[in-house]
């Protein structure tokens, strides 16, 4: 079944001359895979070769069949699927899997060591019984060290929920390494992560590839694909649109769809001139917010001396995860009560808690959450839930509210037959539009958008950002607070406020802050983000900076790209 194929052209060796240096034999291969569910092909005619030490990226919007292809490598298919074509999973070793949400594959009721020990135990059967335990333990510790998890002894005793998202991901990676996987399938490993975490994940996966393991990366995050991929396969609606060496594909995409996908990032760099001439709608004065830690103690997580939001203005609040962005948003919306200082809406202080705000105040500040699916009741049609806003907050009659909701939804590109369904039938992007419509139906003065585009693929994200731009343009009285870790999204705003560890380190016009940042933290944030529109040279520097920046340099050298 093995096919010897010629090596990929134009590649200058593999790092370190390791085990991967000579082998060009794919460790796993898919040929002409077709997966059909209920008569509909979700993957059609996909071929893929996972080469040792190489990163093969499957790129495409959500629903393009990336995950189905990735799971096929693991020998798993959706229930009731009809599969044709040839899948040759790794013959001489199992396949590792790093799913999009690592927490889902970690047993919440068992300590971290449980599965690791079980995997290791199977490998030490040949040893005499009394030496097995020590040998298994040693293997587990080695795998954790290889996955760059320090303090492994303490970590093994913890439960998954006591780990950060990054640690969870590395534990799952350690399981794959312990297994001796020759192929690792990483499904959207960077979705919803901030820039610095992303570069750590990139570093991590590069290190895995450097060990001679074939990495199959499923992602819609072009930054990560750019930084890692040797081979890129662009997918759309279950079919391969284009594939080839990353460098060629990036420089000269042959297919229109690839060009569109790659162009996705360059849309929003042109900021509208500073409008927002009106007076401040929302003024924040001397705000400090606290989180409870343990029974009695509290820690201060946010300190904002002064921040204004003018009418018709879009203010982006940027920072890494854990910097207090969301806490600020929740303070504005009355969802975080443990705060001091004043939040003034048109000069009147807003009560701390949502419960103490009257209906006009509730309507004036509306919140759109990151996870749109969790923000809807899955058992009721979307339309009813949206119309309810007008009924509750503005006292509109049910019929009138439904008409208004339909108009608002149509304005955001959601047809009536779609919104009469339940949330489960809508895609993530569609639900996020619906959530926006729901907030807008309250006729808010201030719309708080908390990471509403992270977790969406490039094209869907572009659609949502288009909607936001149009909103700002059409409605003079509406002000936006855009919470984001993505500087390209922030570029959409008129003004940017930068948070670091709860402190407001810098604020000013977007163009000014993003191009000539004055605070060192902002500079590091801007530096670690790829500026769009760059060619190969930019990729080079990205590799240097993104990986070299954080000390441990384990990635393949940058010469690969030249």
């Amino acid at each position, binding site marked *: 079944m093995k096919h010897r194929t010629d090596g990929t052209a134009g590649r200058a060796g593999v790092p370190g001359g390791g085990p991967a240096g000579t082998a060009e034999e794919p460790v796993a291969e898919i040929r002409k895979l077709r997966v059909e569910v209920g008569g509909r092909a979700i993957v059609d005619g996909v071929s893929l070769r996972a080469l040792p030490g190489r990163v093969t990226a499957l790129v495409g919007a959500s629903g393009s069949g990336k995950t189905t292809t990735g799971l096929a490598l*693991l020998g*798993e298919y959706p229930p009731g699927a009809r599969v044709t074509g040839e899948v040759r999973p790794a013959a001489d070793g*199992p396949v590792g*899997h790093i*799913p999009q949400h690592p927490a*889902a*594959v*970690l*047993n*919440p*009721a*068992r300590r971290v060591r*449980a*599965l690791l020990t*079980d*995997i290791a135990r*199977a490998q030490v059967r040949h040893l005499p019984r009394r030496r097995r335990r020590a040998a298994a333990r040693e293997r587990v510790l080695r795998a954790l060290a290889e996955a760059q998890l320090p303090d492994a002894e303490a970590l093994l005793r913890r*439960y998954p*929920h*006591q780990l950060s998202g990054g640690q969870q991901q590395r534990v799952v990676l350690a*399981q794959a390494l312990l*297994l001796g996987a020759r192929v690792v399938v990483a499904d959207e490993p960077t979705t919803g992560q901030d820039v610095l975490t992303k570069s750590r994940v990139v570093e991590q996966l590069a290190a895995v590839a450097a060990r001679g393991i074939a990495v199959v990366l499923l992602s819609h995050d072009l930054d990560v694909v750019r930084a890692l991929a040797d081979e890129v396969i662009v997918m759309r609606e279950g079919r391969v649109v284009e594939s080839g060496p990353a460098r060629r594909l990036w420089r000269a995409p042959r297919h229109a769809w690839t060009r569109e996908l790659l162009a996705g990032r360059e849309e929003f760099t042109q900021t509208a001139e500073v409008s927002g001439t009106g007076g401040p709608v929302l003024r924040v004065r001397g705000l400090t917010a606290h989180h409870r830690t*343990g*029974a009695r103690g509290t820690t201060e997580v946010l300190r904002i001396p002064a921040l204004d939001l003018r009418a018709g203005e879009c203010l982006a609040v940027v920072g890494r995860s854990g910097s207090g962005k969301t806490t600020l948003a929740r303070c504005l919306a009355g969802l975080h009560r443990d705060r001091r200082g004043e939040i003034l809406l048109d000069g009147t202080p807003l009560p701390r808690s949502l419960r103490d705000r009257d209906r006009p105040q509730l309507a004036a500040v509306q919140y759109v959450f990151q996870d749109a699916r969790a923000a809807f009741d899955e058992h009721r049609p979307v339309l009813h839930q949206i119309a309810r806003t007008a009924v509750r907050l503005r006292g509109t009659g049910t019929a009138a509210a439904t008409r208004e909701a339909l108009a608002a939804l149509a304005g955001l590109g959601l047809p009536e037959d779609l919104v009469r369904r339940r949330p489960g039938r809508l895609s993530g992007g569609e639900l996020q539009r619906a959530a926006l419509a729901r907030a807008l139906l309250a006729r808010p003065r201030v719309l708080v958008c908390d990471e509403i585009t992270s977790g969406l693929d490039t094209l869907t994200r572009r659609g949502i950002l288009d909607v936001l731009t149009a909103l700002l343009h059409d409605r003079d009285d509406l002000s936006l607070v855009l919470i984001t870790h993505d500087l390209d999204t922030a570029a959409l705003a008129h003004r940017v406020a930068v948070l670091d560890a709860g402190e407001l380190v810098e604020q000013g016009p977007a163009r000014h802050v993003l191009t000539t940042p004055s605070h060192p933290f902002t500079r590091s944030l801007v530096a670690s983000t790829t500026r769009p529109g760059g060619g190969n040279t930019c990729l080079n520097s990205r590799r240097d900076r993104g990986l070299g920046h954080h000390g441990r340099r384990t990635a393949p050298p940058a010469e690969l790209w030249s």
Partner: protein
Amino acid sequence: MSGLRSLVARRLLLGAVQTVAVVLLVFALTEALPGDAAVALAGDQPDPARIAAIREAMHLDRPAHERLADWVTGLFHGDLGTSLTSGRPVGGYLAESFGPTLLLATLTLALLVPIGFGLGMLAARHEGRPADRLISSVTLAVYAVPEFALGMLLVTALALRPGGLPPTAVGYGTDLLGRPAVLVLPVLVLLSRPVCSLSRLVRAGLIDALASPYVAHARRYGVSGARVHCAHALPGALVPAVQQLARTLDWLLCGVVVVEALFVIPGLGTVLLDAVAERDVPVVQGLAVVFGVLTVLLHLGADLVAHRRAPRAGVAA
């Protein structure tokens, strides 16, 4: 760890308050019942003068709050009071009848855990197949039969014929272990419903856990089927099962009135029934304290197990 300790402290405090509330409620209810111990003692000769005399001798003519205060003062000295009808200390009275109840509860639990978990795991393993259907429908059917009905049925079928099992424990006193045959029917009846509810909970929890991504992940990485079931899927299913087990044990220890009455077993349930009939307030109150404390401790124990097994969920105090 301090979180766990403060949880335990909070729960114990709350439990003490709950026990006090139960005692007060029980006292108020027994006061509200028509008649008192004097009326009950007077029996067939309800001569008002005689009743008044008995009442005075028992100090029942004093106001209710004084009697309660006396009893509470005694409680702080470890004295549960004296039975009105027999004149014996309540503490000794309860200790004596706790034996049979504890014996029944222990036996039932020792059989309940393996049978309940075994059936549940067996059904989950064969989900949707004949074995599962059989277990599920039989457990549902048995669960639907009340204890007294099942007890009567078993007595009729197994005891009321020559060479059958003894239908009641009359004549064996509190030494039930001396004649194990006496215990067969009561334990069978006590087991019937808890086995059904436990096995159904284990089945449901296990099926959920087996369908979870983390079990798929463990299987993918070559962990054997039995180990996946026991070490990776079962811990997730354990929490509701342990809570149910605590409820069952609570029910067993606090005197299963119906079963004890049916088989005439001199346990706490029988004592409770007699004490209420005789308006023996100190005994009823003593039982309320014992039941309250047992309930609080058992549920705290179950919550601690749950806390350990599903630490993320937290436990409401």
